Protein backbone atom coordinates (compact mmCIF):
# COMPACT_ATOMS: atom_id res chain seq x y z
CA UNK A 1 0.00 0.00 0.00
CA UNK A 2 1.18 3.53 -0.77
CA UNK A 3 2.57 5.62 2.07
CA UNK A 4 0.70 8.83 2.72
CA UNK A 5 2.62 9.95 5.74
CA UNK A 6 6.02 9.12 7.03
CA UNK A 7 7.28 10.96 10.11
CA UNK A 8 10.64 10.17 11.65
CA UNK A 9 12.12 11.19 14.97
CA UNK A 10 9.66 13.97 15.78
CA UNK A 11 10.86 15.85 18.84
CA UNK A 12 8.96 18.75 20.34
CA UNK A 13 10.28 20.76 23.21
CA UNK A 14 8.36 23.79 24.45
CA UNK A 15 10.38 26.49 26.08
CA UNK A 16 8.85 28.86 28.59
CA UNK A 17 11.66 31.01 29.85
CA UNK A 18 14.03 28.63 31.68
CA UNK A 19 11.46 25.87 31.82
CA UNK A 20 11.58 23.24 29.10
CA UNK A 21 8.82 20.73 28.44
CA UNK A 22 9.76 17.85 26.22
CA UNK A 23 6.39 16.71 24.91
CA UNK A 24 7.49 14.48 22.06
CA UNK A 25 10.75 12.54 22.28
CA UNK A 26 11.29 10.98 18.90
CA UNK A 27 7.99 9.88 17.45
CA UNK A 28 7.72 7.87 14.23
CA UNK A 29 4.39 7.68 12.40
CA UNK A 30 3.55 5.83 9.20
CA UNK A 31 0.18 6.00 7.48
CA UNK A 32 -0.81 4.15 4.35
CA UNK A 33 -3.43 5.33 1.88
CA UNK A 34 -6.96 4.54 3.02
CA UNK A 35 -6.11 3.94 6.65
CA UNK A 36 -8.32 5.12 9.46
CA UNK A 37 -6.03 5.47 12.43
CA UNK A 38 -6.74 6.55 15.98
CA UNK A 39 -4.17 8.52 17.94
CA UNK A 40 -4.75 7.76 21.60
CA UNK A 41 -3.09 8.56 24.87
CA UNK A 42 -3.69 10.22 28.18
CA UNK A 43 -4.70 13.82 28.34
CA UNK A 44 -1.60 15.96 28.01
CA UNK A 45 0.37 13.17 26.35
CA UNK A 46 1.01 15.31 23.27
CA UNK A 47 -1.67 14.11 20.83
CA UNK A 48 -2.72 17.60 19.71
CA UNK A 49 0.89 18.66 19.49
CA UNK A 50 1.72 15.74 17.22
CA UNK A 51 -1.33 16.41 15.03
CA UNK A 52 -0.35 20.06 14.69
CA UNK A 53 3.13 19.07 13.63
CA UNK A 54 1.90 16.48 11.13
CA UNK A 55 -0.68 19.02 9.87
CA UNK A 56 2.11 21.57 9.25
CA UNK A 57 0.60 24.00 11.75
CA UNK A 58 3.55 23.73 14.12
CA UNK A 59 7.25 23.25 13.48
CA UNK A 60 8.86 20.42 15.45
CA UNK A 61 12.11 20.90 17.32
CA UNK A 62 13.50 18.02 15.28
CA UNK A 63 12.30 15.35 12.88
CA UNK A 64 11.48 14.69 9.27
CA UNK A 65 8.06 14.57 7.65
CA UNK A 66 7.06 13.29 4.25
CA UNK A 67 3.51 13.62 3.06
CA UNK A 68 2.32 12.23 -0.28
CA UNK A 69 5.91 11.72 -1.25
CA UNK A 70 6.96 15.29 -0.55
CA UNK A 71 9.45 16.33 2.09
CA UNK A 72 7.52 19.04 3.94
CA UNK A 73 9.38 19.86 7.15
CA UNK A 74 11.70 22.32 5.46
CA UNK A 75 9.05 24.28 3.52
CA UNK A 76 8.65 27.98 4.26
CA UNK A 77 5.42 29.36 5.71
CA UNK A 78 3.91 30.21 2.36
CA UNK A 79 4.63 26.80 0.92
CA UNK A 80 3.33 25.12 4.08
CA UNK A 81 0.06 27.04 3.79
CA UNK A 82 -0.27 26.09 0.14
CA UNK A 83 0.49 22.47 0.99
CA UNK A 84 -2.12 22.44 3.76
CA UNK A 85 -4.63 23.86 1.33
CA UNK A 86 -4.03 21.33 -1.43
CA UNK A 87 -3.11 18.16 0.47
CA UNK A 88 -4.54 18.23 3.98
CA UNK A 89 -7.97 18.41 5.52
CA UNK A 90 -8.67 19.47 9.09
CA UNK A 91 -11.48 18.72 11.49
CA UNK A 92 -11.23 20.19 14.95
CA UNK A 93 -13.08 19.71 18.19
CA UNK A 94 -14.91 22.94 17.54
CA UNK A 95 -16.41 23.25 14.06
CA UNK A 96 -14.94 26.73 13.33
CA UNK A 97 -17.42 27.40 10.52
CA UNK A 98 -17.52 30.92 9.14
CA UNK A 99 -20.74 32.31 10.62
CA UNK A 100 -21.44 34.75 7.79
CA UNK A 101 -21.53 32.07 5.11
CA UNK A 102 -23.93 29.33 4.14
CA UNK A 103 -23.16 25.65 4.59
CA UNK A 104 -22.34 25.34 0.89
CA UNK A 105 -20.06 28.41 0.96
CA UNK A 106 -18.25 27.09 4.02
CA UNK A 107 -17.60 23.80 2.29
CA UNK A 108 -16.39 25.49 -0.90
CA UNK A 109 -14.27 28.07 0.92
CA UNK A 110 -10.88 26.27 0.89
CA UNK A 111 -11.15 25.91 -2.88
CA UNK A 112 -12.82 29.25 -3.60
CA UNK A 113 -10.41 31.56 -1.76
CA UNK A 114 -7.27 30.57 -3.71
CA UNK A 115 -9.21 30.42 -6.97
CA UNK A 116 -10.89 33.80 -6.52
CA UNK A 117 -14.48 32.58 -6.51
CA UNK A 118 -16.87 29.68 -6.32
CA UNK A 119 -16.90 28.14 -9.78
CA UNK A 120 -19.91 26.05 -10.88
CA UNK A 121 -17.71 23.00 -10.52
CA UNK A 122 -16.82 23.90 -6.93
CA UNK A 123 -20.45 24.46 -6.17
CA UNK A 124 -21.32 21.04 -7.57
CA UNK A 125 -18.61 19.40 -5.50
CA UNK A 126 -19.61 21.28 -2.35
CA UNK A 127 -23.23 20.25 -2.84
CA UNK A 128 -22.30 16.63 -3.42
CA UNK A 129 -20.16 16.68 -0.26
CA UNK A 130 -23.07 18.12 1.67
CA UNK A 131 -25.19 15.37 0.24
CA UNK A 132 -22.50 12.94 1.37
CA UNK A 133 -22.74 14.20 4.94
CA UNK A 134 -26.54 14.13 4.73
CA UNK A 135 -27.12 17.87 4.64
CA UNK A 136 -28.12 18.55 1.05
CA UNK A 137 -31.28 20.24 2.28
CA UNK A 138 -29.24 22.63 4.43
CA UNK A 139 -26.89 23.87 1.70
CA UNK A 140 -28.19 27.41 1.75
CA UNK A 141 -28.58 27.65 5.51
CA UNK A 142 -26.34 30.14 7.25
CA UNK A 143 -23.79 28.23 9.30
CA UNK A 144 -25.22 29.73 12.47
CA UNK A 145 -28.58 28.07 11.93
CA UNK A 146 -27.26 24.51 11.98
CA UNK A 147 -27.17 22.25 15.02
CA UNK A 148 -23.87 21.26 16.64
CA UNK A 149 -23.74 17.89 14.89
CA UNK A 150 -24.74 19.40 11.56
CA UNK A 151 -22.00 22.00 11.90
CA UNK A 152 -19.39 19.33 12.53
CA UNK A 153 -20.62 17.39 9.49
CA UNK A 154 -20.28 20.54 7.39
CA UNK A 155 -16.76 20.91 8.80
CA UNK A 156 -15.98 17.37 7.62
CA UNK A 157 -17.35 18.17 4.17
CA UNK A 158 -15.14 21.27 4.15
CA UNK A 159 -12.10 19.18 5.07
CA UNK A 160 -12.84 16.96 2.06
CA UNK A 161 -13.35 19.80 -0.40
CA UNK A 162 -9.87 19.85 -1.91
CA UNK A 163 -9.61 16.01 -2.04
CA UNK A 164 -6.88 15.86 0.62
CA UNK A 165 -4.36 13.07 0.84
CA UNK A 166 -4.75 13.08 4.60
CA UNK A 167 -7.48 14.26 6.94
CA UNK A 168 -6.36 15.22 10.41
CA UNK A 169 -9.04 15.26 13.08
CA UNK A 170 -8.43 16.40 16.65
CA UNK A 171 -11.19 15.17 18.99
CA UNK A 172 -13.81 15.58 16.23
CA UNK A 173 -16.60 14.31 18.47
CA UNK A 174 -15.39 15.91 21.68
CA UNK A 175 -17.99 18.63 21.59
CA UNK A 176 -20.95 16.54 20.45
CA UNK A 177 -23.71 14.62 22.17
CA UNK A 178 -23.65 10.85 21.81
CA UNK A 179 -26.01 10.66 18.86
CA UNK A 180 -24.28 13.40 16.86
CA UNK A 181 -20.92 11.92 17.72
CA UNK A 182 -22.10 8.57 16.37
CA UNK A 183 -23.26 10.18 13.13
CA UNK A 184 -19.99 12.03 12.65
CA UNK A 185 -18.05 8.87 13.32
CA UNK A 186 -20.19 6.84 10.89
CA UNK A 187 -19.58 9.50 8.32
CA UNK A 188 -15.82 9.41 8.66
CA UNK A 189 -15.87 5.63 8.45
CA UNK A 190 -18.02 5.81 5.35
CA UNK A 191 -15.81 8.32 3.63
CA UNK A 192 -12.84 6.19 4.55
CA UNK A 193 -14.34 2.99 3.17
CA UNK A 194 -16.07 4.33 0.10
CA UNK A 195 -13.73 7.13 -0.98
CA UNK A 196 -10.48 5.78 0.40
CA UNK A 197 -9.85 8.87 2.54
CA UNK A 198 -6.93 8.53 4.95
CA UNK A 199 -7.73 9.67 8.48
CA UNK A 200 -5.64 10.32 11.54
CA UNK A 201 -8.07 10.87 14.38
CA UNK A 202 -6.93 11.91 17.79
CA UNK A 203 -9.34 10.89 20.52
CA UNK A 204 -9.57 9.81 24.10
CA UNK A 205 -12.95 8.24 23.40
CA UNK A 206 -12.77 4.43 23.35
CA UNK A 207 -15.83 4.24 21.03
CA UNK A 208 -14.02 6.26 18.44
CA UNK A 209 -10.78 4.36 18.77
CA UNK A 210 -12.59 1.05 18.52
CA UNK A 211 -13.97 1.96 15.09
CA UNK A 212 -10.53 2.61 13.65
CA UNK A 213 -8.29 0.19 11.75
CA UNK A 214 -5.48 0.58 14.26
CA UNK A 215 -4.23 2.78 17.06
CA UNK A 216 -1.14 4.81 17.70
CA UNK A 217 -0.65 5.04 21.43
CA UNK A 218 1.35 7.94 22.83
CA UNK A 219 3.01 7.35 26.16
CA UNK A 220 5.71 9.54 27.69
CA UNK A 221 6.27 11.35 24.45
CA UNK A 222 6.84 8.17 22.49
CA UNK A 223 4.76 5.75 20.46
CA UNK A 224 4.17 2.60 22.41
CA UNK A 225 4.95 -0.44 20.23
CA UNK A 226 1.87 -2.38 19.04
CA UNK A 227 2.86 -5.60 20.79
CA UNK A 228 3.11 -4.05 24.22
CA UNK A 229 -0.18 -2.31 23.71
CA UNK A 230 -1.94 -5.54 22.75
CA UNK A 231 -0.42 -7.39 25.66
CA UNK A 232 -1.45 -4.67 27.94
CA UNK A 233 -5.05 -4.78 26.73
CA UNK A 234 -5.31 -8.51 26.79
Amino acid at each position, binding site marked *: MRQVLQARGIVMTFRNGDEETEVLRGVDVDLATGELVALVGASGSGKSTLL*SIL*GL*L*LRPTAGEIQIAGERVDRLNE*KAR*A*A*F*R*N*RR*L*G*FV*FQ*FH*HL*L*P*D*FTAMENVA*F*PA*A*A*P*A*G*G*ISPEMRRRALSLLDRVGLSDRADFPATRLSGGQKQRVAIA*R*ALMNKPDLIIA*DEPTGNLDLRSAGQVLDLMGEVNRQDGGTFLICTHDEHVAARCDRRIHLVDGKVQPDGERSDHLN
Partner: protein
Amino acid sequence: MFALKVARRYLTSNPAQTALLVTGVALGVTVFIFITALIEGLAVRLTDEVTANSAHVTLEPPTRLAEILRGDEAVRTEGVALVSTFQRRQIRAWRSTAELITRQPGVSALSPQISGNAFLVKGEAVQPVSVTGLEPEGLDAITPITPNLVSGQGALGADGLLIGTQLAEDLGLTAGQPVLLRTDRGGERLLTVRGIYKTGLQSLDSRVAFLSLQTARPLFDLPEGVTNIEIKLDDPDRAREVADFLAGATGLRATPWQEKNLNLEDALEAQGRTGTLIQIFSLISIIIGVASALVLSAYRRRSEVGIMRAFGISGGFIVAVFMLQGLLIGLAGGLLGCASGYGLCTFLASLTDADGNPPLPIAPERGGYVAVLILTTLGAVLASAFPARSASRIDPLEAIQQ
Protein backbone atom coordinates in the same frame (compact mmCIF):
# COMPACT_ATOMS: atom_id res chain seq x y z
CA MET B 1 -13.30 38.38 -6.68
CA PHE B 2 -13.88 36.13 -3.71
CA ALA B 3 -12.05 38.38 -1.22
CA LEU B 4 -14.47 41.16 -2.15
CA LYS B 5 -17.40 38.85 -1.51
CA VAL B 6 -15.99 37.96 1.91
CA ALA B 7 -15.34 41.64 2.68
CA ARG B 8 -18.92 42.54 1.74
CA ARG B 9 -20.29 39.66 3.78
CA TYR B 10 -18.29 40.80 6.80
CA LEU B 11 -19.59 44.34 6.47
CA THR B 12 -23.21 43.33 6.01
CA SER B 13 -23.11 40.78 8.83
CA ASN B 14 -23.41 43.60 11.35
CA PRO B 15 -25.42 46.26 9.53
CA ALA B 16 -25.85 48.58 12.50
CA GLN B 17 -22.15 48.73 13.24
CA THR B 18 -21.23 49.21 9.59
CA ALA B 19 -23.88 51.92 9.21
CA LEU B 20 -22.44 53.72 12.22
CA LEU B 21 -18.93 53.50 10.81
CA VAL B 22 -19.98 54.70 7.36
CA THR B 23 -21.93 57.54 8.98
CA GLY B 24 -18.83 58.55 10.91
CA VAL B 25 -16.77 58.64 7.75
CA ALA B 26 -19.54 60.53 5.96
CA LEU B 27 -19.56 63.11 8.76
CA GLY B 28 -15.84 63.68 8.38
CA VAL B 29 -16.31 64.05 4.64
CA THR B 30 -19.18 66.48 5.20
CA VAL B 31 -16.95 68.63 7.40
CA PHE B 32 -14.24 68.52 4.74
CA ILE B 33 -16.66 69.59 2.02
CA PHE B 34 -18.24 72.29 4.14
CA ILE B 35 -14.86 73.82 4.96
CA THR B 36 -13.66 73.57 1.38
CA ALA B 37 -16.82 75.16 -0.01
CA LEU B 38 -16.68 77.87 2.65
CA ILE B 39 -13.03 78.77 2.07
CA GLU B 40 -13.51 78.71 -1.69
CA GLY B 41 -16.70 80.73 -1.42
CA LEU B 42 -15.00 83.24 0.82
CA ALA B 43 -12.18 83.61 -1.69
CA VAL B 44 -14.66 84.08 -4.52
CA ARG B 45 -16.62 86.63 -2.53
CA LEU B 46 -13.54 88.62 -1.50
CA THR B 47 -12.14 88.53 -5.00
CA ASP B 48 -15.50 89.51 -6.47
CA GLU B 49 -15.77 92.41 -4.05
CA VAL B 50 -12.39 93.71 -5.12
CA THR B 51 -12.86 93.15 -8.84
CA ALA B 52 -16.37 94.57 -8.80
CA ASN B 53 -15.32 97.81 -7.15
CA SER B 54 -11.89 98.52 -8.50
CA ALA B 55 -10.04 98.70 -11.79
CA HIS B 56 -8.63 95.53 -13.27
CA VAL B 57 -5.70 97.26 -14.92
CA THR B 58 -4.27 100.67 -14.08
CA LEU B 59 -2.19 102.61 -16.60
CA GLU B 60 0.19 105.22 -15.32
CA PRO B 61 3.10 107.13 -16.77
CA PRO B 62 6.33 105.20 -16.57
CA THR B 63 8.91 106.43 -14.12
CA ARG B 64 11.72 107.66 -16.33
CA LEU B 65 14.64 106.52 -14.23
CA ALA B 66 13.02 103.19 -13.66
CA GLU B 67 13.15 102.58 -17.36
CA ILE B 68 16.80 103.41 -17.57
CA LEU B 69 17.89 101.51 -14.47
CA ARG B 70 15.62 98.57 -14.86
CA GLY B 71 15.99 95.88 -12.28
CA ASP B 72 17.47 97.65 -9.29
CA GLU B 73 14.75 98.13 -6.73
CA ALA B 74 16.52 100.72 -4.53
CA VAL B 75 17.39 103.02 -7.39
CA ARG B 76 13.94 102.70 -8.86
CA THR B 77 12.26 103.86 -5.66
CA GLU B 78 14.53 106.87 -5.53
CA GLY B 79 13.77 107.52 -9.17
CA VAL B 80 10.05 107.73 -8.49
CA ALA B 81 10.63 110.35 -5.86
CA LEU B 82 12.83 112.38 -8.13
CA VAL B 83 10.45 112.33 -11.02
CA SER B 84 7.42 113.27 -9.02
CA THR B 85 9.26 116.18 -7.48
CA PHE B 86 10.77 117.77 -10.52
CA GLN B 87 8.55 116.80 -13.36
CA ARG B 88 4.80 116.12 -13.37
CA ARG B 89 4.07 112.58 -14.31
CA GLN B 90 1.14 112.60 -16.60
CA ILE B 91 -0.34 110.94 -19.64
CA ARG B 92 -0.57 113.72 -22.21
CA ALA B 93 -1.81 111.68 -25.12
CA TRP B 94 -4.57 110.08 -23.08
CA ARG B 95 -7.26 110.50 -25.72
CA SER B 96 -5.41 108.47 -28.34
CA THR B 97 -4.33 105.93 -25.71
CA ALA B 98 -7.92 105.58 -24.56
CA GLU B 99 -9.02 105.00 -28.12
CA LEU B 100 -6.40 102.30 -28.55
CA ILE B 101 -7.44 100.57 -25.34
CA THR B 102 -11.14 100.70 -26.12
CA ARG B 103 -10.50 98.75 -29.29
CA GLN B 104 -8.88 95.86 -27.39
CA PRO B 105 -11.10 92.81 -27.04
CA GLY B 106 -12.01 92.00 -23.46
CA VAL B 107 -11.94 95.63 -22.32
CA SER B 108 -15.36 96.49 -20.97
CA ALA B 109 -14.85 100.01 -19.58
CA LEU B 110 -12.23 102.67 -19.24
CA SER B 111 -11.88 105.81 -17.16
CA PRO B 112 -9.18 108.50 -17.60
CA GLN B 113 -8.58 110.09 -14.22
CA ILE B 114 -6.68 112.75 -12.34
CA SER B 115 -5.77 111.32 -8.97
CA GLY B 116 -4.12 113.24 -6.22
CA ASN B 117 -4.01 113.91 -2.54
CA ALA B 118 -5.88 116.66 -0.78
CA PHE B 119 -7.50 117.75 2.45
CA LEU B 120 -11.17 118.38 3.03
CA VAL B 121 -11.74 121.20 5.46
CA LYS B 122 -15.04 121.82 7.22
CA GLY B 123 -14.77 124.35 9.98
CA GLU B 124 -12.29 122.91 12.47
CA ALA B 125 -12.36 119.44 10.95
CA VAL B 126 -9.72 118.42 8.44
CA GLN B 127 -9.53 115.02 6.72
CA PRO B 128 -7.00 113.78 4.18
CA VAL B 129 -8.61 112.38 1.04
CA SER B 130 -7.65 110.70 -2.18
CA VAL B 131 -9.25 112.77 -4.88
CA THR B 132 -10.36 111.14 -8.09
CA GLY B 133 -11.24 113.42 -10.96
CA LEU B 134 -13.14 111.58 -13.66
CA GLU B 135 -15.50 112.17 -16.57
CA PRO B 136 -18.95 112.60 -15.02
CA GLU B 137 -20.56 110.27 -17.57
CA GLY B 138 -18.05 107.58 -16.59
CA LEU B 139 -18.64 107.92 -12.86
CA ASP B 140 -19.71 104.30 -12.44
CA ALA B 141 -17.34 102.81 -15.01
CA ILE B 142 -14.87 101.44 -12.49
CA THR B 143 -16.59 101.63 -9.13
CA PRO B 144 -20.38 101.58 -8.96
CA ILE B 145 -21.09 104.81 -7.09
CA THR B 146 -24.56 105.88 -8.26
CA PRO B 147 -26.20 102.60 -7.22
CA ASN B 148 -24.64 102.99 -3.78
CA LEU B 149 -25.77 106.55 -3.07
CA VAL B 150 -27.44 106.85 0.31
CA SER B 151 -28.26 110.54 -0.02
CA GLY B 152 -28.10 113.31 -2.64
CA GLN B 153 -27.48 112.42 -6.27
CA GLY B 154 -24.66 111.53 -8.62
CA ALA B 155 -24.51 114.57 -10.94
CA LEU B 156 -21.09 116.12 -10.29
CA GLY B 157 -21.51 119.39 -12.20
CA ALA B 158 -18.81 122.04 -12.11
CA ASP B 159 -18.32 122.19 -8.36
CA GLY B 160 -19.77 118.92 -7.18
CA LEU B 161 -18.16 116.38 -4.86
CA LEU B 162 -19.15 112.83 -3.94
CA ILE B 163 -17.89 111.34 -0.69
CA GLY B 164 -18.43 108.18 1.33
CA THR B 165 -20.56 107.83 4.44
CA GLN B 166 -17.60 107.43 6.76
CA LEU B 167 -15.90 110.59 5.51
CA ALA B 168 -19.19 112.48 5.66
CA GLU B 169 -19.61 111.40 9.23
CA ASP B 170 -16.04 112.32 10.17
CA LEU B 171 -16.53 115.81 8.79
CA GLY B 172 -20.16 116.19 9.84
CA LEU B 173 -21.22 116.70 6.23
CA THR B 174 -24.56 116.08 4.60
CA ALA B 175 -25.56 116.30 0.94
CA GLY B 176 -25.88 119.88 -0.28
CA GLN B 177 -23.36 121.34 2.14
CA PRO B 178 -20.21 123.19 1.05
CA VAL B 179 -16.72 121.99 1.92
CA LEU B 180 -13.24 123.34 1.19
CA LEU B 181 -10.85 121.17 -0.86
CA ARG B 182 -7.15 121.93 -0.60
CA THR B 183 -4.82 119.89 -2.84
CA ASP B 184 -1.14 119.05 -2.44
CA ARG B 185 -0.47 121.15 -5.56
CA GLY B 186 -1.66 124.23 -3.69
CA GLY B 187 -5.08 124.43 -5.37
CA GLU B 188 -8.05 125.34 -3.23
CA ARG B 189 -11.75 125.52 -3.96
CA LEU B 190 -15.06 125.53 -2.19
CA LEU B 191 -17.09 122.57 -3.48
CA THR B 192 -20.54 121.23 -2.74
CA VAL B 193 -21.25 117.71 -1.49
CA ARG B 194 -23.72 116.44 -4.10
CA GLY B 195 -24.08 112.94 -2.83
CA ILE B 196 -22.96 110.48 -0.21
CA TYR B 197 -22.36 106.83 -1.06
CA LYS B 198 -21.77 103.66 0.87
CA THR B 199 -19.95 100.83 -0.94
CA GLY B 200 -19.07 98.81 2.11
CA LEU B 201 -15.39 99.06 1.26
CA GLN B 202 -13.60 100.80 4.09
CA SER B 203 -11.08 102.75 2.01
CA LEU B 204 -13.68 103.98 -0.48
CA ASP B 205 -16.15 105.05 2.17
CA SER B 206 -13.66 106.87 4.39
CA ARG B 207 -10.87 108.31 2.27
CA VAL B 208 -12.00 108.98 -1.30
CA ALA B 209 -13.69 111.96 -2.91
CA PHE B 210 -14.94 112.05 -6.51
CA LEU B 211 -15.22 115.17 -8.65
CA SER B 212 -15.27 115.89 -12.36
CA LEU B 213 -12.14 115.82 -14.48
CA GLN B 214 -12.67 119.48 -15.45
CA THR B 215 -12.94 120.55 -11.81
CA ALA B 216 -9.78 118.62 -10.95
CA ARG B 217 -7.60 120.16 -13.70
CA PRO B 218 -6.86 123.55 -12.13
CA LEU B 219 -6.78 122.08 -8.64
CA PHE B 220 -3.97 119.69 -9.59
CA ASP B 221 -2.34 121.95 -12.14
CA LEU B 222 -2.93 119.58 -15.03
CA PRO B 223 -4.48 121.56 -17.90
CA GLU B 224 -4.32 118.74 -20.47
CA GLY B 225 -3.13 115.37 -19.23
CA VAL B 226 -4.43 112.75 -16.84
CA THR B 227 -2.48 110.87 -14.16
CA ASN B 228 -3.91 107.47 -14.76
CA ILE B 229 -6.29 105.44 -16.91
CA GLU B 230 -8.36 102.82 -15.15
CA ILE B 231 -9.57 99.82 -17.12
CA LYS B 232 -12.22 97.21 -16.48
CA LEU B 233 -12.15 93.84 -18.22
CA ASP B 234 -14.82 91.29 -19.05
CA ASP B 235 -12.69 88.67 -17.30
CA PRO B 236 -10.68 89.92 -14.29
CA ASP B 237 -8.60 86.74 -14.35
CA ARG B 238 -7.02 87.95 -17.58
CA ALA B 239 -5.75 91.17 -15.97
CA ARG B 240 -2.11 90.12 -15.90
CA GLU B 241 -1.88 89.28 -19.59
CA VAL B 242 -3.89 92.34 -20.63
CA ALA B 243 -1.61 94.50 -18.47
CA ASP B 244 1.46 92.99 -20.13
CA PHE B 245 0.02 93.65 -23.54
CA LEU B 246 -1.01 97.23 -22.78
CA ALA B 247 2.34 98.04 -21.26
CA GLY B 248 3.99 96.96 -24.48
CA ALA B 249 1.49 98.71 -26.72
CA THR B 250 1.37 102.06 -24.91
CA GLY B 251 4.74 102.32 -23.22
CA LEU B 252 2.87 103.09 -20.01
CA ARG B 253 3.15 101.26 -16.73
CA ALA B 254 0.30 98.78 -16.48
CA THR B 255 -0.59 97.24 -13.13
CA PRO B 256 -3.08 94.38 -12.83
CA TRP B 257 -5.45 94.42 -9.86
CA GLN B 258 -3.77 91.46 -8.20
CA GLU B 259 -0.59 93.47 -7.67
CA LYS B 260 -2.49 96.32 -6.11
CA ASN B 261 -4.15 93.94 -3.66
CA LEU B 262 -1.29 91.88 -2.37
CA ASN B 263 -2.86 91.80 1.08
CA LEU B 264 -5.90 90.12 -0.47
CA GLU B 265 -3.69 87.34 -1.73
CA ASP B 266 -2.11 87.05 1.71
CA ALA B 267 -5.52 86.87 3.33
CA LEU B 268 -6.67 84.22 0.89
CA GLU B 269 -3.55 82.22 1.52
CA ALA B 270 -3.99 82.41 5.28
CA GLN B 271 -7.58 81.28 4.89
CA GLY B 272 -6.45 78.50 2.62
CA ARG B 273 -3.99 77.29 5.24
CA THR B 274 -6.67 77.25 7.92
CA GLY B 275 -8.88 75.29 5.58
CA THR B 276 -6.12 72.83 4.79
CA LEU B 277 -5.55 72.24 8.49
CA ILE B 278 -9.22 71.44 9.08
CA GLN B 279 -9.26 69.24 5.99
CA ILE B 280 -6.26 67.32 7.25
CA PHE B 281 -7.84 66.84 10.66
CA SER B 282 -11.07 65.58 9.19
CA LEU B 283 -9.11 63.09 7.09
CA ILE B 284 -7.12 61.99 10.12
CA SER B 285 -10.31 61.42 12.10
CA ILE B 286 -11.67 59.34 9.22
CA ILE B 287 -8.52 57.25 9.14
CA ILE B 288 -8.51 56.73 12.90
CA GLY B 289 -12.19 55.79 12.86
CA VAL B 290 -11.80 53.23 10.10
CA ALA B 291 -8.58 51.83 11.56
CA SER B 292 -10.03 51.34 15.04
CA ALA B 293 -13.19 49.73 13.68
CA LEU B 294 -11.20 47.31 11.57
CA VAL B 295 -8.75 46.54 14.36
CA LEU B 296 -11.75 45.57 16.46
CA SER B 297 -13.28 43.55 13.67
CA ALA B 298 -10.00 41.73 13.05
CA TYR B 299 -9.81 40.97 16.75
CA ARG B 300 -13.35 39.62 16.91
CA ARG B 301 -12.76 37.49 13.84
CA ARG B 302 -9.33 36.20 14.76
CA SER B 303 -10.57 32.62 15.25
CA GLU B 304 -12.28 32.68 11.84
CA VAL B 305 -9.17 34.10 10.26
CA GLY B 306 -7.07 31.53 12.11
CA ILE B 307 -9.13 28.69 10.71
CA MET B 308 -8.79 30.11 7.22
CA ARG B 309 -5.05 30.14 7.75
CA ALA B 310 -5.24 26.56 9.04
CA PHE B 311 -6.71 25.29 5.81
CA GLY B 312 -4.06 27.09 3.93
CA ILE B 313 -5.65 30.28 2.73
CA SER B 314 -2.91 32.77 1.98
CA GLY B 315 -2.03 35.80 4.05
CA GLY B 316 -2.58 37.87 0.92
CA PHE B 317 -6.21 36.79 0.81
CA ILE B 318 -6.75 37.84 4.43
CA VAL B 319 -5.04 41.19 3.76
CA ALA B 320 -7.29 41.68 0.73
CA VAL B 321 -10.44 40.93 2.77
CA PHE B 322 -9.63 43.58 5.35
CA MET B 323 -8.30 46.19 2.95
CA LEU B 324 -11.34 45.75 0.74
CA GLN B 325 -13.49 46.39 3.80
CA GLY B 326 -11.57 49.63 4.23
CA LEU B 327 -12.08 50.45 0.57
CA LEU B 328 -15.82 49.78 0.73
CA ILE B 329 -16.24 51.80 3.91
CA GLY B 330 -14.21 54.66 2.42
CA LEU B 331 -16.18 54.63 -0.80
CA ALA B 332 -19.57 54.37 0.88
CA GLY B 333 -18.74 56.99 3.52
CA GLY B 334 -17.15 59.20 0.88
CA LEU B 335 -20.15 59.06 -1.44
CA LEU B 336 -22.63 59.53 1.38
CA GLY B 337 -20.54 62.39 2.77
CA CYS B 338 -20.35 64.02 -0.67
CA ALA B 339 -24.13 63.86 -0.95
CA SER B 340 -24.74 65.22 2.54
CA GLY B 341 -21.96 67.80 2.19
CA TYR B 342 -23.46 69.04 -1.06
CA GLY B 343 -26.90 69.06 0.54
CA LEU B 344 -25.66 71.02 3.54
CA CYS B 345 -23.77 73.53 1.39
CA THR B 346 -26.65 74.16 -1.02
CA PHE B 347 -28.98 74.56 1.94
CA LEU B 348 -26.66 77.06 3.63
CA ALA B 349 -26.14 78.88 0.33
CA SER B 350 -29.91 79.18 -0.10
CA LEU B 351 -30.37 80.88 3.27
CA THR B 352 -30.64 84.67 3.28
CA ASP B 353 -30.13 87.21 6.03
CA ALA B 354 -32.02 90.49 6.48
CA ASP B 355 -30.25 92.07 3.49
CA GLY B 356 -31.17 89.16 1.25
CA ASN B 357 -27.58 87.90 1.12
CA PRO B 358 -26.44 84.46 2.16
CA PRO B 359 -24.97 84.63 5.70
CA LEU B 360 -22.12 82.34 4.68
CA PRO B 361 -20.38 82.86 1.35
CA ILE B 362 -20.52 79.15 0.57
CA ALA B 363 -19.79 77.87 -2.92
CA PRO B 364 -21.49 74.43 -2.97
CA GLU B 365 -20.04 73.59 -6.39
CA ARG B 366 -16.53 74.03 -5.00
CA GLY B 367 -16.60 71.44 -2.23
CA GLY B 368 -13.61 69.49 -3.56
CA TYR B 369 -15.80 66.42 -4.01
CA VAL B 370 -13.53 64.37 -6.25
CA ALA B 371 -10.51 65.15 -4.08
CA VAL B 372 -12.25 64.21 -0.83
CA LEU B 373 -13.69 61.03 -2.35
CA ILE B 374 -10.25 59.93 -3.50
CA LEU B 375 -8.54 60.99 -0.26
CA THR B 376 -11.17 59.30 1.90
CA THR B 377 -11.03 56.07 -0.05
CA LEU B 378 -7.24 56.05 -0.02
CA GLY B 379 -7.25 56.99 3.66
CA ALA B 380 -9.64 54.18 4.54
CA VAL B 381 -7.58 51.67 2.60
CA LEU B 382 -4.48 52.97 4.35
CA ALA B 383 -6.26 52.72 7.69
CA SER B 384 -7.10 49.08 7.00
CA ALA B 385 -3.49 48.19 6.23
CA PHE B 386 -2.48 47.70 9.85
CA PRO B 387 -5.45 45.54 10.94
CA ALA B 388 -5.18 43.63 7.66
CA ARG B 389 -1.53 42.88 8.27
CA SER B 390 -2.06 41.79 11.84
CA ALA B 391 -5.02 39.60 10.84
CA SER B 392 -2.93 37.91 8.18
CA ARG B 393 -0.36 36.97 10.83
CA ILE B 394 -2.75 35.28 13.20
CA ASP B 395 -1.38 31.90 14.25
CA PRO B 396 -3.89 29.23 13.21
CA LEU B 397 -3.06 27.12 16.27
CA GLU B 398 -4.08 29.91 18.61
CA ALA B 399 -7.43 30.18 16.86
CA ILE B 400 -8.05 26.45 17.02
CA GLN B 401 -7.19 26.12 20.67
CA GLN B 402 -9.78 28.66 21.74
